[in-house]
């Protein structure tokens, strides 16, 4: 086993071990989680260097190649998501460790969630992915339930939807297995299409759309994300939907690229557009900060589905390829960082003002300037303004749209950015109101966490060359040519 392969294995093992240890030694759970994070960070660095140098790193469990064994592979895309997961989890764990208010189950749940995420990010087997997704759902629902009695209804709703989605996905997996006798993506891609594949793809996609909270299945998301404790919301909003979306991407671009056709791609993008518009309008109507942030997630997830028609989009005049595909990855990454920062900001303000209502924010910029700065920077990313990662994503997406002769899809991020500005302006303006309310002090260390996350989202835009290069490692051909 090369060091890189070992690092890959560690990315799965470390969170699981930390979760188990946290159950055994609840008093040390914060310390254990931080240790696991540190180790995972090192592993990630090793893995990243290997991928950049030699291309994707593959690990066959038990030494058997598919179809006998199960393949784990860290390509550029997977690695980018692994890094995103690490950064957000690090932020959330750091925040929780400083805050020290969360109930004991938080720590193992968070570690479990992280483990499930990592498993999804590197798996290439449809059933493996299903297992990862289920694990993820369980941990996520439990995290929502940590929000107390009021959160129970939201958690239940979340669970029902997630189970429905899982059932659809599983049905699709069964159909595929029945038809092809394998669930490994690389092998699937090599085989011809069967008549049942259309139904299988439809079932799996529908299931994943429910789990990604794509319009019109987003209705579980805002209550769940708003009800969870801030740390939980940060994990849920920033990372969990990205897992199912990643599967969706791998399914369409890697496992069954030849199943796509133009109306199908347009249908997916159209739902994404509906999500952008609907999420944006709903966010404008909310009176609770966390609800605004949650609806913003609905809208931002909508952008991701534009990747299906936009991937490729190589215009003759453009020096870059795969703009649309990379845009989606950039968007997922920068959204994760910014959204986590926002929920943590919401958590800080809840501590300070004692209420999650929008009106309670009045004047808090003066009281907690660092948090206001973090929220502002995160907003810049979500609005897609330069120099943030959100802008890079928007720019690549729009360029891909124009270069490939589909300007309409290019207008979606533009309009979405303006709507984001509209709904994010309300909290910003209130923060800058003149009155200084009574508030509890919040430590600077705690405030530093969302600021760091938000700055990371900005840095993703300023130093976008390296992440871009990384993403291209092991990029499927379809990303370049379009579906």
């Amino acid at each position: 086993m090369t060091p890189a392969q070992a690092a890959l294995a560690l990315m799965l093992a470390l969170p699981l071990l930390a979760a188990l240890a946290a159950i055994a030694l609840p008093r040390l759970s914060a310390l254990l989680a931080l240790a696991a994070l540190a180790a995972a960070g090192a592993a990630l660095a090793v893995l990243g260097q290997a991928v950049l140098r030699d291309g994707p790193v593959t690990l066959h469990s038990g030494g058997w190649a598919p179809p006998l064994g199960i393949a784990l592979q860290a390509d550029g895309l997977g690695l980018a998501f692994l890094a995103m997961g690490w950064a957000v989890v690090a932020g959330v764990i750091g925040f929780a460790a400083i805050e020290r208010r969360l109930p004991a189950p938080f720590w193992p749940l968070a570690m479990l969630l992280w483990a499930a995420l990592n498993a999804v990010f590197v798996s290439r087997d449809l059933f493996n992915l299903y297992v990862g997704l289920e694990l993820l759902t369980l941990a996520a629902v439990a995290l929502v339930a940590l929000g107390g009695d009021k959160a129970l209804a939201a958690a239940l709703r979340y669970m029902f939807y997630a189970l429905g989605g899982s059932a659809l996905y599983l049905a699709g997996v069964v159909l595929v297995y029945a038809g092809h006798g394998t669930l490994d993506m690389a092998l699937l891609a090599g085989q011809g299409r069967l008549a049942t594949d259309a139904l299988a793809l439809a079932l799996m996609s529908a299931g994943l759309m429910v789990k990604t909270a794509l319009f019109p299945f987003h209705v579980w998301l805002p209550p769940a994300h708003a009800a969870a404790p801030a740390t939980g919301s940060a994990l849920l909003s920033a990372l969990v939907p990205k897992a199912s979306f990643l599967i969706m991407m791998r399914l369409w671009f890697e496992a069954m690229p030849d199943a796509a056709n133009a109306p199908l791609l347009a249908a997916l993008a159209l739902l994404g557009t509906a999500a952008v518009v609907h999420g944006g309008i709903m966010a404008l109507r909310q009176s609770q900060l966390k609800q605004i942030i949650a609806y913003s997630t609905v809208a931002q997830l909508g952008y991701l589905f534009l990747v299906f028609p936009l991937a490729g989009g190589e215009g003759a005049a453009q020096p870059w390829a795969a703009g649309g595909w990379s845009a989606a990855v950039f968007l997922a990454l920068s959204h994760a960082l910014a959204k986590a920062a926002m929920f943590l900001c919401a958590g800080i303000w809840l501590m300070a003002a004692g209420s999650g209502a929008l009106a309670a924010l009045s004047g808090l910029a003066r009281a907690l300037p660092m948090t206001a700065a973090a929220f502002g920077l995160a907003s810049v990313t979500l609005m897609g303004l330069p120099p943030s990662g959100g802008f890079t994503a928007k720019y690549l997406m729009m360029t891909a749209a124009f270069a490939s002769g589909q300007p309409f899809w290019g207008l979606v991020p533009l309009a979405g950015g303006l709507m984001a500005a509209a709904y994010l302006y309300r909290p910003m303006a209130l923060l800058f109101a003149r009155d200084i309310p009574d508030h509890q002090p919040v430590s600077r260390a705690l405030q530093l966490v969302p600021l760091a996350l938000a700055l990371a989202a900005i840095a993703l835009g300023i130093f976008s060359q390296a992440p871009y290069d990384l993403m291209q490692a092991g990029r499927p051909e379809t990303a370049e040519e379009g579906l």
Partner: protein
Amino acid sequence: MSAALPMAILASSLVPAAITFFLHQNSHRTRNTLSLGGAVIKLALVVAMLVDVAGGATHEARLALAPGLFLLLRLDALALLFMALSAVLWLLTTIYAIAYFGTKAELSRFFGFFSLCVAATTGLAMSGSLITFFLFFEMLTLATWPLVVHKQDDKSLAAGRSYLSFSLPGSAALLLAIIWLESATGPVVFTDPPDMSALSDASRRAIFALFVIGVGVKAAMVPLHGWLPGAMAAPAPVSALLHAVAVVKAGAFGVVRLVFDVFTIGQVQALGLGTPLALAASVTIIWGSLRALQQDEIKKRLAYSTVSQVSYIVLGAALAGPAAAVGGLAHLVHQGLMKITLFFCAGIFDERCGVRRIEGLNGLGARMPVTAFCFSLGALGMIGLPPLAGFVSKFYLGLGALQAGAPWVLVVLAASTALNAAYFMPLLYRLWFLTPAEDARGDENVPALVVPAAVTALASLAVGVFAASAISPLGWATLIVAREYLP
């Protein structure tokens, strides 16, 4: 050719900005030293550069972002014109602002964003490619908002809201235009105008229109000017920044780049775009003046005057001829000098005497002779009284209009002059000729407020008196036009 200089110039305001944010509210001395130090260093760099660039040198720095997305900083004569203006005015505004705010609250935030704004302006001036221009354009939008709402009262917040609700859609239009264009031509670098043969004439016109809308918001072109008058709720140094140094200038500068470096004069004429743009600018000039006439608040009147005056620059670009271009470019500097003088003075009137409305100006000339004198110079310059700066701009614009075969522009200039006189002269009359109210008080014994105003006022006289000299804004504008736009 050296990459270090552009980066150093950018850093001279970025670094103070970054540090200032983290300073404690009460560390006034450190903050002031940083702000002033940055401004002085930048000015020194720019002056050193002037000689260099006049000799024909250019400096370039390139920073890759995503593929196709790179930051290109380029110091040429046009960049330096804008930058010299902002560097000089920034230093003066900093001195003024330090005195203006004294030890009020939230100053670290203020000066942080203030420096950031200037960094954005500097970057904008040095932008060598469209996308770089856009990046700094947006940075400017965002960095300005906290300054506009600095007072944090309802009026300021409303102004901030209005600012963003104009600016962000404007930026969206600009981004759309850039991407539309670049998807057909590849990245656009200003030194090498793009080949647009892949685009139909209708598309080119649409792109041009989107561009104009995008930068027109910042340049406060009617009907996109609604944010500017409200923004006068901000403190006086911010108004100075908005109206003279940075924001509206960014818009006007964008129009100049658009016409000369993206579309090029030849294509603008071939597509028949110059006349509509000149008409839009003319409407703005007249409309702004008419609205100014109606305002009873000094700063509001000045704000509408800006709406009107900035479109002179747009007009200069739109007429797309050598003399008009010289006039427009010179006005970029001239308007800055005159308008900043007026806002400095308006700030002094407000801060020292609580005078915000024009009735309050009655008899102030006797108590604040220096301020009133500076205000008068600025106002007369705006009217275009020779030999002040505004006259030189008008002279060249009028000449350019005739050169371009658009004599109707003379009517616009004449009407604008008459209207300018109509809304400025009553203020001067009040200052010097009417008797003050019984309870009037206040003086001008704050050199740090008065000296910057005096410097800019005298500068706006000097640039007119020595207009033909090679180092005047007019001389520099002539150099730019001769070097870059004439065959």
